[in-house]
């Protein structure tokens, strides 16, 4: 296993309260596979992705769980062990690359693109500046940037969003990491560019044998590019399955709602989650989602017993008391094909 995350919890501490935005999340990425990490905004997917690198934003703190990379423990909160900042740097960027959402914002605005990519490679490989520049040009070419000789001298603001994203991917790839985390890497781009970038990542994965985590809220992206899906809601992993399995028999209400909201397969009116995302500072008893869930029932214990992640099928786990019913009900909620065929993708 390339990466295994076990029981990871991240808390943001404010005066008088602690906001646990990720609770006991586990995730595995086999070498050369693409794992999709999906969920609505604020469900903790970016926090989880960042925590893999031992990082949190602002007042955040990793309060539980462990991360193992190629069998090497990066940190384990229960044993109180973690890499030192120096040791972390051997993983950040070098073994695990991160591609962030706002590509132009990820570059230092006052330095030329080429200089920044060169330096990233030099720091991690110890290469000379000449070698680094050759590598940069080669990678920029590989990610589909025209005229790399000229582009290396561009400042970040002179690149279009798509071009900056390509450059950022080139930079992330330059030290040949084994794992690439794409945190909403294509969300800010228009759909045609998005497709090009995703195709590019897919191709690079095959040529570079990369493991990847694709953080997204776009089910289409997940369906087309991922091998395995992890769905998060309110800081928990609530469903994970191989991608074909996931789309064939989706079982968690949050997953159905996400699909329906994008007009995939279901009548969105029937399976909409009510209200706003769960406030992780005040989680309700029972299932975190039960107040928003159209399938919730007190008979099943939705409002009293917190559901565990349990086997739904082989390799397909769901955190829902009513997973079996939900699948059936969701099927029933599909609009009749003849009357509403247009929206049925």
């Amino acid at each position, binding site marked *: 296993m390339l990466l295994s995350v076990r029981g990871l919890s991240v808390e943001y501490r404010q005066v008088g309260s602690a906001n646990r935005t990720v609770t006991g999340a586990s995730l595995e990425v086999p070498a050369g596979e693409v794992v999709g990490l999906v969920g609505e905004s604020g469900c903790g997917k970016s926090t989880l992705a960042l925590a893999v690198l031992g990082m949190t934003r602002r007042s955040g703190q990793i309060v539980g769980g462990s991360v193992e990379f190629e069998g090497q423990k990066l940190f384990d909160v229960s044993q109180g062990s973690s890499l030192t900042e120096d040791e972390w740097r051997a993983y950040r960027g070098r073994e695990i690359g991160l591609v962030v959402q706002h590509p132009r914002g990820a*570059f230092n*605005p006052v330095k030329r693109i080429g200089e920044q990519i060169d330096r990233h490679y030099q720091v991690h490989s110890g290469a000379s500046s000449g070698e680094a520049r050759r590598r940069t040009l080669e990678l920029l070419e590989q990610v589909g940037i025209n005229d790399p000789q000229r582009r290396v001298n561009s400042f970040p603001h002179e690149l279009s969003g798509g071009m900056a994203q390509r450059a950022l991917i080139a930079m992330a790839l330059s030290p040949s990491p084994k794992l690439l985390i794409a945190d909403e890497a294509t969300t800010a781009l228009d759909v045609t560019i998005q497709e090009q970038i995703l195709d590019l990542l897919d191709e690079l994965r095959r040529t570079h044998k990369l493991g990847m985590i694709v953080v997204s809220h776009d089910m289409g992206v997940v369906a087309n590019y991922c091998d395995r899906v992890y769905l998060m809601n309110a800081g928990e992993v609530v469903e994970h399955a191989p991608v074909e399995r996931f789309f064939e028999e989706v079982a968690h209400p949050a997953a159905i709602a996400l699909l329906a909201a994008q007009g995939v397969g279901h009548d969105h009116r029937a399976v909409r989650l009510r209200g706003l995302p769960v406030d992780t500072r005040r989680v309700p008893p029972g299932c975190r989602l039960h107040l928003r869930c159209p399938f919730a029932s007190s008979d099943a214990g939705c409002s009293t017993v917190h559901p565990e992640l349990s086997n739904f099928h082989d390799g397909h786990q769901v955190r829902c008391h009513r997973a079996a019913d939900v699948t059936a009900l969701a099927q029933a909620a599909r609009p009749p094909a003849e009357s509403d065929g247009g929206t049925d993708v």
Partner: protein
Amino acid sequence: MSVEPGEYGAVGDAADMGGERSGDAPLPPAGMGAQVKELLRRSWLVRIGLFLVAVAVLLAIVGPYLARFPLEEATPNANLPPSTTYWFGTDPNGFDVFSRVLAAPRIDVAIALVATAIAFFIGSAIGLLTGYYRGWPGEFVMRIADLIQSFPLYVLAIIIVVLTGRNFQNIVLVIALLNIPIYVRLVRSQVLSLRERTFVEAGKAAGTTDLNIAVRHVLPNGLSPALAQVPITIGFAILITAGLSFIGAGVRPPTPEWGVMVASGAESIIIGEWWISFFPGVAISLTVFGFAVVGEALRAVFLREV
């Protein structure tokens, strides 16, 4: 001189500049050099400012060699009005005012440049560190900055110079100390917002050390306001030097220095001997004006860029 020390650093809106481009006009795809050129071309005010600064700096280097009479040698020809021999007249000691006005930048401009350089480097470094690594040490430093800035400038300067002794070095250090809080604030405010930018997180995720991020990535992005402040600080430093000397807490007479010279003629103005104070006074005004205009122009260029 009617500039209140309290107004320090409070500079007019950049749009007041004669050569300011209208706000919506797109930037030409050019570097900073081209922008400066553009500003020069559009504004006669900036050209005058740069000319004045150039003259002041030049005089700081060659001024004393242009003297037409010995600078610190009393003669019986005291209080003579301007004439073909003594172009700006002579003062109560019989010194040639013209020679001394030209020689004074050696002291005034030198003090200002050195003090500003110290304030800029130390202030920016403190601002970077307290902004990037937040926490109580930073808060502590900021309260000290408050303390320094809450004192009336001249009073503080006089107290310190009197306590430490009137010499070149102490005047420089006092002026530097008074200006450090300004640079701490300017840089810190930039760093506080820059440290939340994506490229800082991306840098950390890419395995860059904190110090490297702070110095190589955050600082270059947050230095513009501090750089634009430099000429303005130089101008005010000249003003403070002259002011301290005028009230007898700065450079000792008979050293050729503008403040000393204004003071030496202050009592004779009332009997019509205006030239003794007038020419050094004009020199101070023009120099400070020149630096202020250049500072303003730099601000216009820098602030549009980010």
